[in-house]
């Protein structure tokens, strides 16, 4: 089983978001970067699959050299090898094109992405990548079992779950329930230093979207406080004043 896991490098979830250069750029000053949490779950699941039935896990990242700490962490968690496409990741279509270009020559049985990145939240790379590689895709999966050359998965749907099967090769995106993240141990961290990390130059691709500027959401007005002994009044206010119930 040859698995590819696509990882992105995102600001830690505790980050307070701020913008610079006339609100056109995210302020990275003092921001701690991590592997996108959903991608990390995808990686862990990929490792569980190869530990059971053999194979290799390659991680791929489209980004600049600044992301190397996250790539090394992926290797420390247990990935066999890593590939970095040396280009800034500013557009889902561009990123999917880079990954598709690499994956097209590699015969992966299974390709994982995260459900979405927690910074741009597009949730598009999985489907775009599958379309570009002419493969099926199943997004937002909460479980996956491999039986021979078939994958059996659960995916989230509105108000429930769907059990779905598909023969490999296949592109999937990981949702929270898929597995628990793994903390790399000392041996893994040491081993990661010498694992192969290949840097490839990007292929020509169009960038189909551009962020022009950012804004913070409008601030909330003052919070109207209700005394705990008169909590009933909340229901009245929601009914009569806010008119939401």
């Amino acid at each position, binding site marked *: 089983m040859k698995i590819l896991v696509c990882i992105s490098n995102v600001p830690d979830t505790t980050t307070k978001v701020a913008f610079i250069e006339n609100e056109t750029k995210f302020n990275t000053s003092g921001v701690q970067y991590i592997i996108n949490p959903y991608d990390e779950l995808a990686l862990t699941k990929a490792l569980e699959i190869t530990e059971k039935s053999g194979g290799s896990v390659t991680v791929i990242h489209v980004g600049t050299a600044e992301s190397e700490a996250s790539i090394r962490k992926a290797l420390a968690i247990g990935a066999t090898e890593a590939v970095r496409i040396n280009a800034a990741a500013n557009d889902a279509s561009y990123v999917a094109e880079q990954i598709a270009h690499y994956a097209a020559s590699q015969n992966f049985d299974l390709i994982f992405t995260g459900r979405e990145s927690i910074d741009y*939240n597009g949730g598009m790379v999985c489907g775009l990548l599958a379309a570009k590689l002419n493969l099926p895709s199943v997004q*937002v999966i909460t479980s996956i079992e491999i039986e021979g050359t078939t994958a059996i998965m659960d995916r989230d749907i509105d108000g429930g*779950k769907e059990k779905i099967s598909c023969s490999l090769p296949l592109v999937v995106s990981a949702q929270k*329930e898929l597995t628990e993240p793994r903390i790399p141990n000392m041996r893994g961290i040491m081993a990661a230093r010498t694992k192969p990390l290949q840097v490839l130059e990007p292929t020509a691709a169009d960038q189909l979207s551009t962020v022009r500027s950012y804004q913070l*959401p409008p601030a909330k007005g003052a919070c109207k*406080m209700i005394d705990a002994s008169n909590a009933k009044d909340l229901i009245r206010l929601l009914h009569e004043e806010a008119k*939401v119930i």
Partner: protein
Amino acid sequence: MSVIVFAENSEGLFKKSTLEAVFYAHELGKLVQQNCIAISIGQVDEVQLKMLATYGADQIISFNQTETNTFNAELYAALFANTAKNSNAKHIVFANTYTGKLIAPRVAGILNAAMASGVISLPNLDNGFVVKRTVFSGKAIADVELNAQVKLISIAPNTFTIFEVNKSASIEKLESTIGTEIAKTKSIELSKQVGKIALTEAELVVSAGRGMKGPEHWGMIEELADLLGAATACSKPVSDMHWRPHSEHVGQTGITIKPNLYIAIGISGAIQHLAGVSSSKVIVAINKDPEAPFFKAADYGIVGDAFEVLPQLIEAAKSIQS
């Protein structure tokens, strides 16, 4: 040229998110001076199809035959993309539901369209084609320019107010020209929560955190939610401790929701949690710690113990019901 919208059905019925997408496509059509074509795939009757005209479709295309009546992402994406191509569509609209998330990027890939998901505004056409979408899991909003000839917009549910515009659209019944061998994924089983409101579609949400002290106390949360007709949700620690299922976890690494009302009980309001709920229209925070950060993000607040406040709320909700 037309604006084309995917009219997603759920067991033959159009949900509010679909009508929002149709209305958005109609409004977008006015901006770019094009008519609006809604495409429905699956077993949907005429009464339902006509509802698409009520909310803005000028023309309705319905694929309703055995081969296409079972949902399949590959087949639906190919059929929709093909129909869009045949109508020379340059603007495509989806609702960003789980189904939309599955099909829309695939359609964008096939058509080489520039796509924006979770869109919260109509485009600004003053200088390019620029839409607003939430980023950083709700912590910010980005103005995104779509640069390709074909543009695909997947709109955030429960964002746009819709009105009846009552058009008299024709319903065109077409047959799929896509071979079913394209369908690679196979559905084995659907399990939907019965009698519960889906969190992703809920207009009202009652959510609780560690302040509830243990899963055995969730009865009160569910009772209040039932009385209000709300869905239940929880904070990350609660789902991490398996007090509640992961599917109820709202926040930056759970699901992002924007209901009309979000009641947070015993949740302090960590930045990651607020990111997932801050777009809710009205927010209520109930916490015994007056310094809880949630009060800064809330419209209404009660400083108090959940176990004292909840019974009062349940009683008041009962009286409002009767």
